[in-house]
């Protein structure tokens, strides 16, 4: 299964290039033309990413993140979410790289195949980092309804985390 999953990306590339040759596309010209777009794209999102990562670091250093986590943990266990994965649930919407760090920590501390670890893995996969999407996709675009969209995303995430823990218990 893992071997098969590893095959997907190379096969996508090979198939795309073969098809492009078939359609008589100049692949090298086309590919480099595409790569050229990476720099302006990054330039346009860099300020927003930097601001958010600065804020995340402040949250961590000031202890606010830890305080929030410990306040919310009892609420989590009430809904059937194991307390152990509370830091992940808090971190996931905020930062992709941060949450993969938290996930690894949980897996190491409680064992990869433990109930909490499996819950953590499934919960991690249910959603993407909402604040990152907000910062990157909508960088510089101010829309009134974005707050509503953010709340909806966070709510759906929370419900699906509860569902994940339920699934891990029965599957």
């Amino acid at each position: 299964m893992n071997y098969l999953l590893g095959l997907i990306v190379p096969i996508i590339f090979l198939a795309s290039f073969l098809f492009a040759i078939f359609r008589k596309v100049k692949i090298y010209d086309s590919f480099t033309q595409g790569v050229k777009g990476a720099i302006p794209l990054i330039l346009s999102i860099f300020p927003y990413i930097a601001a958010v990562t600065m804020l995340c670091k402040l949250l961590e250093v000031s202890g606010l993140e830890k305080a929030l986590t410990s306040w919310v943990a009892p609420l989590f266990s009430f809904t059937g979410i194991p307390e152990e994965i509370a830091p992940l649930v808090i971190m996931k919407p905020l930062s992709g790289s941060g949450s993969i760090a938290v996930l690894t920590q949980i897996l190491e501390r409680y064992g990869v195949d433990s109930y909490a670890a499996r819950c953590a893995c499934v919960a991690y996969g249910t959603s993407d980092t909402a604040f990152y999407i907000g910062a990157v996709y909508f960088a510089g675009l101010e829309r009134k309804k974005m707050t509503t969209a953010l709340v909806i995303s966070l709510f759906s995430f929370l419900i699906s985390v509860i569902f994940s823990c339920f699934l891990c218990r029965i599957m």
Partner: protein
Amino acid sequence: MNALFSLLFAICTLLLLYISPETFLPALLDGASKGAAVCVSLVATYSVWLGLMQVWEDSGVTRAVSKLVKPFAKRLFKTDDEEALKAVSMNMSVNLLGISGAATPYGVKAANLLDKTKNAEYSSAMLFVLNATSLQLIPTSIIAVRVALKSANPTDIVIPTILATLLSTILGIILTKLFIKDEKARDTGRVCMPKRLQTKGAGTR
């Protein structure tokens, strides 16, 4: 975003003033360098996927895929803007494949295009929710972590993950439809608008 950022920033700064003011600037600098590092790794990811995407674009794959997803996207996003629908469709199909790195450039493009359309509030919100609740078919990064930590059965979380992400996405779509008014329903007699955009879209190709 402005209110949230200012509020959290202010609370953290106040806390740090009380606990250890000397760590304030190092924390900001550390955060900024992390941001820069994220951008550098994003440049690498984008270079790979944008290169491939240009090949798709030139060989007509993009058009074929978005044609498949488009009727669905059109109903979901309630917009007639051809270029925006194309970006949205690609964003959705790449997300499904689990290549989230490749979904981002399309997502950014879609967000900017949707922002200029008539029904921007609704369609932007839908784009946000769809991406934030990400519908993934293969959770590649989680499996990688589990393999690295020597799990006895690294892939046993695949099916629960698909079910859970399906729930979050469907719930997100329903809530968006419920809570965010779509202006298109009230907006009739706007036939000339998409047509103009359509010809403009065809011209740039």
